[in-house]
């Protein structure tokens, strides 16, 4: 056995003290749901971890009623600084229980412990700390003096970053003075349940946060509920479209953070070794289950072969397997359904004539696995260049000039993120100005910070999460019209005039 076959280094799951069955979290208590109980499994082993209650329409009614009650009687009357204290307390408890949360997330989602420990959980704490600081400073949110909360927020989150997406949703909503009913994804409810325990520990007033678990139907009942004032959704563009339709014509405020097909653009003058890392991090982080993943590699034609060669070499050092092993780089695909979708689209890629290369990984017998895969010879017309695969599959497209890179990068119905790799600062800035994407990374990728707004153009959704802009999604100005420039802060800037395109770095 060579050194690189590092001996197993599993994180112990003994730290978890899981219940066999989890109820809904309504009005500060765990209660039974009225729907059929379902299993949550570990995607790496297909073993059942726990049974989860399913909320039906009545349960959702109860949860919304609890949120309404606590909004009217407690939360909306509490001072901002007191709300902030609760958020600080939650943040500290997340840090205290970080190891437990990291293990639970790796177990339930299938992502490697290295990521839950070093990325997910620290960011969750950071999000609560950040918005805790805002709770008593809302008059500086750019919405005029004394902006007011919206009321009850209905939030539906995806399975790719279960706890982190929960934090993205709950932290700003609570800081702004709203109460919350949140529905985690069906396959990943576990950490939300642990989070409910943290809320009890923090002695957060009952009903301020309610958690209803279940499938899409539960989410539908929640977002269409008459007594919610705000709907926030992160997930697929298809579901986002349905939600937008159901909210249309109501007074509910809506934030959508949907799919993406981000271009990661590598120029011939890029810092090559770091660009390779950035490509790997861009698409193979979290098994590619990232809405802002750099799933389209746009590489300058004159360095294409070198980049692909180096990339393949680097991918061969990635370690796939047990998510709880501290040396695992690539974990399991979250569900059988998602694995099927990735397989189908990859097969389509081959049929359409793209050249497939897959890293040589040992696939475990049980569980849902997909080895890192690269498609070269991809043309912008191919389905794998247009549709979100949401898996560890990279489509490589070449370009010759900056103008061509911009045209190809923007040629997508999505617009969530993009990456630029070049050592030339002027080119970086000129390109960022032309890319129609909400988040643009330069010489890095997939970096998140609570102070930075995040959100998309076009079919990637609307509204921003994170930063000061993220507060605007949960606040209304109080009878005072904010100057247009401020209220439009979260909206997409107008497309730059065509003539500026000439200014793109040569």
């Amino acid at each position, binding site marked *: *056995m060579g*050194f690189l076959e*590092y001996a197993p280094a599993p994180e112990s799951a003994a730290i978890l003290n899981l219940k066999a069955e989890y109820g809904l979290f309504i009005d500060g208590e765990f209660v039974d749901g009225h729907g059929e109980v379902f299993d949550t499994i570990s995607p790496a082993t297909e073993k059942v971890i726990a049974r989860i209650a399913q909320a039906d329409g009545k349960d959702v009614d109860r949860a919304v009623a609890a949120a309404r009650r606590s909004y009217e009687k407690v939360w909306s009357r509490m001072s901002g600084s007191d709300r902030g204290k609760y958020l600080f307390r939650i943040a500290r408890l997340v840090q205290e229980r970080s190891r437990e949360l990291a293990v639970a997330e790796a177990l339930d989602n299938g992502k490697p412990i290295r990521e839950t420990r070093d990325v997910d959980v620290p960011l969750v704490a950071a999000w609560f700390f950040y918005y805790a600081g805002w709770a008593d400073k809302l008059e500086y949110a750019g919405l005029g003096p004394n902006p007011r909360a919206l009321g009850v927020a209905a939030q539906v989150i995806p399975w790719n970053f279960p706890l982190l997406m929960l934090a993205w949703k709950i932290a700003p909503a609570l800081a702004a003075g709203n109460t919350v009913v949140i529905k985690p994804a069906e396959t990943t409810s576990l950490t939300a349940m642990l989070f409910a325990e943290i809320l009890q520990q923090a002695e957060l007033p009952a009903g301020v946060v309610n958690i209803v678990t279940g499938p899409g139907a539960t989410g539908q009942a929640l977002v269409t509920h008459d007594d919610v004032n705000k709907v926030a959704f992160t997930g697929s563009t298809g579901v986002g479209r349905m939600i937008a339709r159901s909210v249309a014509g109501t007074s509910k405020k809506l934030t959508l953070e949907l799919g993406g097909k981000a271009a990661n653009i590598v120029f011939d003058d890029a810092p090559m070794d*770091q660009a390779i890392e950035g490509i790997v991090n861009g698409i193979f982080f979290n098994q590619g289950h990232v809405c802002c993943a750099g799933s389209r590699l746009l590489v300058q034609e004159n360095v294409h072969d070198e980049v692909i060669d180096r990339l393949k070499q680097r991918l061969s050092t990635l370690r796939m397997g047990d998510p709880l092993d501290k040396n695992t780089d690539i974990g399991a695909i979250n569900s059988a359904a998602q694995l099927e979708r990735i397989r189908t689209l990859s097969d389509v890629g081959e049929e359409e004539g793209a050249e497939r290369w897959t890293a040589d990984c040992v696939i475990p017998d049980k569980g849902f696995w997909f080895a890192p895969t690269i498609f070269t010879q991809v043309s912008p017309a191919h389905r794998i260049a247009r549709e979100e695969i949401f898996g560890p599959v990279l489509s490589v497209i070449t370009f010759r000039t900056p103008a061509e890179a911009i045209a190809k990068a923007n040629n997508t119905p999505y617009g969530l993120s993009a990456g630029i790799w070049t050592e030339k600062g002027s080119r970086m800035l000129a390109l960022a100005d032309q890319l129609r994407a909400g988040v643009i990374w330069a010489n*890095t990728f997939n970096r998140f910070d609570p102070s930075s707004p995040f959100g998309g153009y076009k079919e990637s959704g609307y509204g921003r999460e994170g930063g000061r802009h993220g507060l605007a999604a949960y606040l209304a100005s109080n009878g005072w019209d904010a100057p247009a420039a401020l209220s439009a802060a979260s909206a997409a800037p107008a497309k730059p005039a065509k003539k500026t395109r000439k200014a793109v770095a040569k």
Partner: protein
Amino acid sequence: MTLDHPVALAPADRAVQLLGGDLTEKALRLHLDGLSGVDAVGLEQRAAGLSTRSIKTSSKAWALDTIIRTCDLTSLEGADTPGTIRSLVAKAVTPDATDPETPRVAAVCVYGDMVPYAVAALGSLHAAGGESGIQVAAVATAFPSGRASLAIKLADTREAVAAGADEIDMVIDRGAFLAGSFGVVFDQIVAVKEACRRTDGTYAHLKVILETGELQTYDNVKRASWLAILAGADFIKTSTGKVSPAATLPVTLLMLEVIRDWHRLTGEKIGMKPAGGIRASKDAVRYLVTVAETVGEDWLTPQLWRFGASSLLNDVLLQRQKLRTGHYSGPDYVTVN
């Protein structure tokens, strides 16, 4: 600095093959300027990522032995005496008296004038460039500053080789490098390499110290690594240990990336030696991980990888005892030299 009149450089084999027969400073400069840049944040992030590998049980045992086997046990003090050198050699030969299975270190590294004492103390265990036994490495070329005339640097080198040094750790002229005189740095390495030639036509191994703490930027480290390899280095080495910061993981990762690129280009394997500042086993294991995941574990042999260290060895021995016995002992259970 003008390059109107191309300055001819010493025709080092590697450089001639890569850059062509009429080797000039201009050609060298163009080549070094053409290397892709280094993004500092990304490089440090990658190094931090490699540091999170968790090396346990059998992998840890192998790693600890490999650290000892690839260690250049070093004493470079103004106060060194024949006695301290004999003591250093004794430690190199018997790192842990409680366990005869403990591997021996790769080499002892001393000042040039101490070479005869090291050679004498090693006696039949002197590897003299061979596969078994312990090598004697000497720092030379007006170590650590390198501020002396070329004639003195060459005399320094020749004397150490004549006294029996198997390996020469030379320093580059950082002043010349930072002033942009790449040709001066290049020619000096070529000349020192030639001074490593023994009377029988064989060469002492040449390690070229870049002193990365003085080069400051990663771009400089990359250029200097490439330059040293082109000029004929057998090993590239981070630091003298006399300047802070000495070896760091990002710098070592970067130099290993250059070594990997050279291998991709030519098939030739260059050695790497981080030196100074590596004191804990835990840190040393991170370096091994970085080697294995950057150039491959083929490099984890004394022929291609060395740690320049003095206090590291005892920490490794303590960890090794812990693995063997199941409990920690203490500093009095390993020997001082």
